[in-house]
């Protein structure tokens, strides 16, 4: 079984049209395209030089090892796993390439079919104080009737989706503009978040107050020096609870009703 990183890298290099030179269960060798070489290999001078002199630039070939136990003994390459900067870099690049998407559902039917527009957003919600936790939301909004669908990715994963509009299909123009659709979903998310009691924030608040009391008692007899205010600001930074909402990616999806 190939591991999740291996599968991710395969998808990445396929989507970015890099040619596979060799694949094993635990490694991938690819010939990069000029665009991906520029993105990943960090050699701007080379590319600058090649472009200035008209020299034919040669993108690099790289080998990534995703599982040391499943490769031939003499294979050399860059080991890659969660936590390596290389994976972070490719992941960031993949996110850049997939922040926006537009897809159409394909169904094997012989007659004309209308496709309804949906807005998809995948969201990372972070509860953050002195500790942190992320929650994933995938929300869909029907841009005709305003219906909201939760766990929308799960729905989409089961469908056959393509990037070009299929024959015999036509799209219905949205009644809700995508941008105001995002606003609606944000309002929905806000109301969901406000329903929770957020014990974590209560706890952080309490610890913050305790530490503030300690700090005050430390400087009880003095005119408060600069260090007091530095420490006080640091406590706020450490403990003040907040919720960050970030849209990871999303787009417009046209689905059969």
């Amino acid at each position: 079984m190939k591991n999740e990183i291996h599968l991710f890298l395969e998808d990445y290099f396929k989507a970015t049209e890099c040619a596979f030179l060799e694949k094993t269960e635990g490694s991938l060798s690819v010939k990069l395209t000029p665009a991906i070489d520029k993105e990943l290999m960090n050699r701007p001078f080379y590319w600058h030089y090649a472009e200035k002199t008209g020299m034919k630039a040669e993108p690099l070939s790289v080998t990534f090892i995703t599982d040391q136990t499943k490769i031939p003994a003499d294979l050399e390459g860059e080991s890659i796993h969660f936590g390596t900067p290389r994976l972070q870099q490719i992941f960031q690049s993949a996110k850049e390439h997939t922040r926006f998407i537009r897809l159409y559902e394909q169904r094997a039917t012989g007659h004309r079919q209308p496709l309804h527009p949906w807005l998809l957003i995948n969201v990372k919600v972070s509860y953050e104080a002195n500790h942190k936790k992320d929650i994933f939301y995938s929300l869909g909004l029907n841009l005709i009737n305003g219906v909201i669908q939760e766990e929308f990715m799960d729905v989409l994963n089961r469908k056959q989706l393509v990037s070009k509009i299929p024959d015999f299909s036509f799209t219905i123009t949205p009644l809700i503009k995508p941008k105001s659709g995002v606003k609606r979903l944000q309002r929905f998310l806000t109301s969901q978040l406000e329903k929770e009691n957020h014990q974590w924030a209560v706890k952080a608040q309490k610890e913050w107050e305790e530490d503030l009391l300690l700090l005050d008692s430390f400087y009880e007899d003095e005119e408060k020096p600069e260090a007091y205010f530095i420490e006080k600001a640091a406590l706020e930074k450490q403990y003040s609870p907040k919720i960050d909402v970030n849209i990871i990616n999303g787009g417009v999806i046209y689905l059969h009703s």
Partner: protein
Amino acid sequence: MDVEIYFDHSWEEELEKRIEQDGPWGSWPLFQSTINMERRMMVPDFEGLLAPSFLPELTALPHQLEAARRVVEEMNGKAILADEVGLGKTIEAGLVLKEYLIRGLVKKVLILAPASLVSQWAHELTTKFYIPAIAQKKFYAWDEHDIVISSIDTAKRSPHKEKIYEQDYDLVIIDEAHKLKNHKTKNYQFVRHLKKKFCLLLTATPIQNRLDEMFHLVSLLKPGHLGSEGQFSEQFKKGDRQVQNHHHLIKLMNKVMIRNRRQDTGVEWTARKVESVKVTFTEEERSLYQALEQLVRSQPDDVRSAFSLLTLQREACSSKEAVFFTLRNMAKKLNGNHLDFPESFQNALSHIQNITHNSKAEKALQLVQSINDKVIIFTEYRATQLYLQWFFKQNGITSVPFRGGFKRGKKDWMKQLFEKQAQVLIATEAGGEGLNLQFCHHVINFDLPWNPMRLEQRIGRVHRFGQTKDVCIYNFSIENTIEDRILQLLYEKIHLFEQAVGQLDDILERIDLPNMQEHLVDIFQHSKTEGELHVKMKNLEAAIELANEWKKEEERFSEERNSSIS
């Protein structure tokens, strides 16, 4: 409870643009794959450690993982990591840092370490933890890079200091933090004024026995945890040196400090084999040793107090070069900067000239030849270090020197030379910290420090994680000298060497002689004569024996109580 919610609106703006210009749109399989990765990298819970699954090549030990977990979960990222030497405090700090980076709670980090350890920190963080840490070299490093390692001596100086004060650090890590114990120093004030959300202080020196130092260190981390200075004295100090409310204090300390001992780690340790090597003075050496006493006696009273006979005699047990060096410094002090030695020095000087052999050096040579493997020799004195290097060269043994004062690059270079080419490394005391020499397992203590913690640090260079062989320690001492008596008391009477590593400070703590350290300073630094030293040692010895008896009795008592319950 209402919590502020922050939306990032950049996505929806961009979406509109993409719709207008019809793309570009991402690929669906990569989109799905990216979301899977994103979910995989999210922080699923407020608690627990994610770092280990991100570091499959790092084998962290259970006590290190537990330490990291406690720092993050229970201590809110403010902790003193005080494991015994060689248990991997750096690994614990690395785990905490990695955890916070993964969780996105930390971005901007400052690591302050002794100059000699800066490159080692950078190396460990980048290779073991995949953390892009930069050893500060350029002035602009402070705002240019997120994770910077520097020596405190550089950091506290202008213009660096001002630049650092501008930074808002999420985490500050300070290695060898016991150097911050004095709150009046520039170092302490500097650290106190850093903006820091989380903070780790690393130290191998137990701080429990020094109340004031403990107070100031904790106050750096979490001001008020031990109250204000006034409240602290009132609650915990009894007179000048005693502690009261001991248990309450320990409870408070346990909230901010983690201290693993070797025996708690559950890891099999290679053994320590300790051998005392007694060396006999030649007649000439013996007469120098005795002449030093006359020299000090012959000084007028006001001058005599500046002389430490003990120091001179301990030097005489090391090398005549060490004695000469000190005598020359004394002469300089007495005569201004004249290089002439006073008349009263001549006798001792002629004794120095008469010495043709160094008995210890010869013994060391024999030993090194018979070991026929890498050996580290520790000496307290620079002059002895230089002499030994010369002496070994004369006898066809390759050696490299090591001192605390060496620049980073030179230290790395010396370590490498020792590993690859030389048979012997000759180190002075200051060379000890942070030097990892697991590839070597023979240590010669050419002379003995009076402070047992320093000895522990010496041995800790080789007897640490990664050492696969038993470690042989040879303690040299000259018969019938002050050195002999130091060895007898500290290292034989208290059985310090036979104990598993690190139990030393355990003993010092449990003996419950507060300020053991101070007693030792008093005995070895302030005793004017061997006689005084002898008496003080006897007293300490008696106190330790008594404490040990109490301890045993206490244990017996608790055992009886346990058995009667069952």
